[in-house]
């Protein structure tokens, strides 16, 4: 009996702990300052009709995982824009788990939010969430990645993964002047971005004399990217460039190359434009990265969501273009 009580207490403590732990980044009801002010100020009640509407709008958003730096930036932009427009948002952290995201969307439906934004971790795994929202008659918008039943969703806000691969591939082709040996570091196999970026790269390599002499996954991880590069470097093959599907892996490759004293002899390309990668591009240890505009994606998505909540007609896709970054562009992205 004593054991049982102890067990229960522990579980409760753990759950509370987890909830509190998440509080900082997710789970909370973000309230706009105007709403928090409540009816204290008369100006609020006298505000214009549209503003009032905005104020009442509730957006439920499920991010694929707030342990990823990019997604955190995206969610920050999202929150900022929501605050600016004075709409209420409910943020859920999908923790890289499709099933959790489906559950979160179901919860939003139960709470009767006005519009749902889904940033799916998996095209197939999250598809039921879109269907559920559609059946409940709540508009659903996908953000930066799509689901396999995308046609059922009301709109897509984000970028085209193929495009980023094409921009990156374009830089590679340009620098190598259409000739040479490259190695490719994939993200997690089967991930939408992994497939899209690869397709884009191949589109650009077609018809050139650039050959992929080795390809392998490093699971988006810096340490694995480093390890992989060390192994490739000892294989004795002539490598002209490393194409990494994200900056973390590219930075791993840069470190391996530096350790071997080969800096400058092997070109390195990433995607994401994270702070450290920008430094490297500026220094020349990396030759290019691709900027995915998290800020614009996040803010545009809120705007689209508000439109959806008001019942305005939406376009199918709202593309936020990728931007290739070279050393000279770096200051613009700080």
């Amino acid at each position, binding site marked *: 009996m004593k054991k049982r009580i102890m067990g229960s207490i522990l579980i409760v403590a753990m759950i509370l702990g987890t909830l509190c732990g998440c509080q*900082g980044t997710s789970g909370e009801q973000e309230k706009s300052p105007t709403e928090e002010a409540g009816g204290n100020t008369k100006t609020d009640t006298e505000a214009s009709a549209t503003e009032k509407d905005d104020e009442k709008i509730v957006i439920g958003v499920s991010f694929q995982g707030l342990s990823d730096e990019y997604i955190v930036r995206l969610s920050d932009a999202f929150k900022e824009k929501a605050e600016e427009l004075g709409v209420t948002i409910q943020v859920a952290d999908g923790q890289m788990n499709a099933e959790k995201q489906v559950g979160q969307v179901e919860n939003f439906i139960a709470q009767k939010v006005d519009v749902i934004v889904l940033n799916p971790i998996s095209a197939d795994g999250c598809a039921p969430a879109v269907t559920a929202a559609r059946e409940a008659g709540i508009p659903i918008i996908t953000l930066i990645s799509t689901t396999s039943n995308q046609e059922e969703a009301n709109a897509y806000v984000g970028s085209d993964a193929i495009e980023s691969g094409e921009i990156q591939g374009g830089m590679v082709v340009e620098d190598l002047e259409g000739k040479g040996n490259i190695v490719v570091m994939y993200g997690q196999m089967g991930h939408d971005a992994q497939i899209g970026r690869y397709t884009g790269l191949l589109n650009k390599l077609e018809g050139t004399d650039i050959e992929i*002499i080795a*390809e392998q996954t490093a699971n988006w991880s810096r340490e694995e990217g480093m390890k992989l590069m060390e*192994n490739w470097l000892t294989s004795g093959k002539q490598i002209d460039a490393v194409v990494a599907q994200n900056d973390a892996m590219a930075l791993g490759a840069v470190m391996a190359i530096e350790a071997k004293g080969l800096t400058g002899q092997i070109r390195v390309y990433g995607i994401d434009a994270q702070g*450290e990668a920008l430094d490297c591009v500026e220094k020349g240890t990396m030759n290019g990265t691709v900027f995915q505009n998290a800020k614009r994606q996040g803010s545009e998505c809120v705007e689209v969501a508000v439109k959806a909540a008001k019942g305005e007609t939406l376009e199918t896709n709202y593309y936020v273009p990728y931007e290739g970054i070279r050393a000279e562009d770096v200051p613009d992205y700080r």
Partner: protein
Amino acid sequence: MRQEWREIVSTGNKEGQFKVYVAKYGIYFLFLLVFILLSVSNKAFFTVNNLLNISKQASIVAIIAMGQTICLISGGMDLSSGSVMALAGVTSAMYGLADGTNMPAAVLTAIGVGMTCGLINGLIVSWGKVPAFIATLGMQQAARGMALLLTNATPVFGLSEQYIFLGSGKISGIPVLVIVMILVMLASAFMLNKTKFGRHIYAIGGNELSAYVSGLNVKRTRLLAYTITGALTGLGGLLLAGRIQSGTPAMAEGYELDAIAGAVIGGVSTSGGIGSVYGAVIGALLMTMVNNGLDLLNVSAYYQQIIKGIIIVLTVFIDVRTKDIKK
């Protein structure tokens, strides 16, 4: 009960010397076999550079695997290693930034954070009587959450040269990582084999009740075992942050499983009481070596995962079989 006894006893120790030999050194034979195979199939494999590579890449996993070994021998298990490494890595990286670096603080923070997490694990397991699997799973979640919270999911980068030296430096041609790994190995082996405390770890893992009846302080021993495991985990986090030149809250994900696999491949029993740190190091080396060899051969990631899975199960299968013979 009585009958079972007779059966165990009657199988005796009459088997040939050779089988006993294989049973004891099976993993080393396997290691050699894979080594020769890879050397033959790829000329880039058997080069000084590549061998240094492998040992460097294996070092951190090996250190974590040794921590796991201590924990497993005591009859426990630590699923929180990866997350605790991340937490130790990011907190210590905060003291290792290029401007205002404080190396002693960075090192002490990493090991201190690891020890604290280990101590908490130990307290929950030995005093709280929560199964190790659950307690450390909780720590896995909590520590990762803490690391993400402290950094807002952003890597801590721009580390000082001294800090990076820990992960990437060399002392007369030998990577610092490898040196630290060897020191840890010697110290752990000494602790486990030559000290009273080490023997007590084996005793509580081998038969807790027997150890308790013999007047051993089971709880304290278990607590200390977890704490030491935590300290090694913290050290691993420090080295990993040094190696990837940043404290990343998402780093070392799944490290605990690699480490447990390494330990188990090296002959450490998941039910406690059996194993050595040498085995764990060999296990970690074996896995890294296979990974390295397959990368060199440009084998697809899918096949690599399959091969890794097969190796883990196969070595333990062989181990269980040969151990039966030994009995």
